[in-house]
């Protein structure tokens, strides 16, 4: 469970996150909101790249803000970025090894990388350089990196951006398998409401850094406040 309590992030005179308190407990939770709502800032706080001026965050009971970004990765936090970050001059396996090198002891790396490769169904292109992968494969590599080691919390920032509906469907199926197979909680940001509805049993909606709604996804998406702020309905 992710427990956020009275979280405040301030950049100069702007508060991208303002007194946010929320608890996310679903295996796969959604995080939505209009542009500038503070979604990516929240992911940056969780992964340690932005330091809040106030508040507490705990994941499965462990206080997160006391840990450095590296300690969080070693403790099981994984994240992907809005723009996929596959290294072009490393192979698919090399990209997975690059994270295994730092989160696992030597004798466990090969097995974990192999399992991740199978999980994202990229074994046939394991030796292909990142520069030769298509966008779908690059997104899968990003997901594969998230399941290397022993992930406890996976933060996915628009993992399906730029993919076709069919490709998004495959990605969704894989993301839904993560909690069962890896025991990790997943938090997904995406602007594709249909994807969020199909994947997340619980969704948090942010607006101007504050919580607009939190609850079962269908109820949240049906909320008039959410529809007005996020879906542009009047």
């Amino acid at each position, binding site marked *: 469970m992710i427990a956020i309590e009275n979280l405040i992030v301030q950049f100069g005179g702007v508060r991208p996150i303002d007194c946010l308190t929320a608890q996310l407990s679903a295996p796969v939770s959604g995080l939505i909101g209009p542009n500038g709502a503070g979604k990516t800032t929240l992911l940056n706080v969780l992964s340690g790249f932005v330091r809040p001026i106030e508040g507490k965050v705990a994941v499965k009971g462990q206080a997160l803000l006391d840990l450095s970004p590296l300690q969080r990765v070693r403790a099981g936090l994984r994240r992907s970025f809005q723009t996929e970050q596959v290294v072009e001059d490393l192979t698919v396996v090399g990209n997975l090894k690059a994270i295994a090198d730092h989160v696992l002891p030597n004798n466990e790396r090969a097995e974990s990388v192999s399992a991740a490769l199978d999980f994202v*169904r990229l074994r046939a292109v394991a030796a292909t350089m990142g520069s030769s992968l298509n966008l779908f494969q690059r997104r899968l590599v990003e997901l594969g990196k998230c399941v290397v080691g022993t992930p406890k919390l996976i933060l996915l920032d628009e993992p399906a951006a730029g993919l076709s509906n069919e490709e998004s469907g495959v990605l969704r199926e894989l993301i839904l398998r993560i909690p069962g197979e890896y025991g990790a909680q997943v938090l997904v940001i995406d602007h594709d409401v249909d994807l969020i509805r199909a994947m997340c049993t619980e969704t948090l909606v942010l607006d101007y850094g504050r919580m607009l709604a939190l609850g079962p996804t269908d109820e949240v998406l049906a909320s008039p406040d959410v529809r007005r702020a996020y879906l542009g309905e009047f």
Partner: protein
Amino acid sequence: MVSPMTASFPATAAARTLSGQILAIPMTVAIFSGAIALFANSFWLSAATSAIALSLSVAGLAILYGQLGLVSLCQFALVGVGGWVTLRVGHAFHPPFEVSLLAGGIVAAVVGLAFGLPALRLRGLYLALVTLMLAGAFQIIISAWGFPDGGSGFLGRADGAGRAMLSRPSIAGEAIPYFLYVNVFAALGLMIAQWHKLARPGRAWALIRKGETVAISAGVPVLVYKAWAFALSGFLAGIAGALLAGNVGQLDGRAFTSFESLNLFALAVVGGVYNWYGALIAGLLLRAIPALLTDLGIDGYVTIGIFGLALFQALATAPSGVAGQISGLLNRLRAHLGKSGAE
């Protein structure tokens, strides 16, 4: 169902084995050194010895620029540091040459790490300026101190008849054996550099090059790996300096200006920083072209203009350098042969 595996990829993109890529180095160096040892006269043998030694310093530079995107303009100063320490240790204690050489490499690694400290926070133009100024500082110091030549005291400077030359290793006292000796160390150095690129450090550097946030998100301790790159680069430059000192038994402070560091960087780009043999090509350009001009009776300073044009050509049309162009050609050849074999 969409399958991510159905797309086809060029065979050339497939990675070759790590051991295969590393073993290509001693094989290439052996062929090169054999050809030079058989056919070169003493003038060209000396030039080739310097070229191979300097290729190690280019390999160090290629780690910083090719792997991390860091522009360091003090690499030739580190060659000088390695040479200075080798001469000082050699004259003071008369140990086996390998001990002096290793001392030169280790001290240059420490100095390289110190020179690289700004890089832990700086990059781009600012890092280039800071490192160029460090090269300038070394130029001033070495102009005042000179290289040790058998004297006493910390600086090891002798006056007049007391000057001595550093002895070459006992197993490589003559020009050809010393040339082969330098080739062995160059092959070892290039293999160490290549192993780093292909193994865990190379993967960490690749992530840092992608972005420090990306690297940290993958658990990479960015500062440690940057510092390691600077130390390794300094070590290789120091070994190059030691091998140069052993070539002629003495070094001239006037040959270690900050311009030489600029020249070395430019030729590293021309040779190619993404392939290991780019360092060999750059080393040869650095010493073979001036030697050729000298052989033809043309002023060696003409090389500055030639290298400038070569750099312009590389930046405009071949950012991966001569080595990148050779690599592309080999890949196309392999693809063509693979296709012919399939038919």
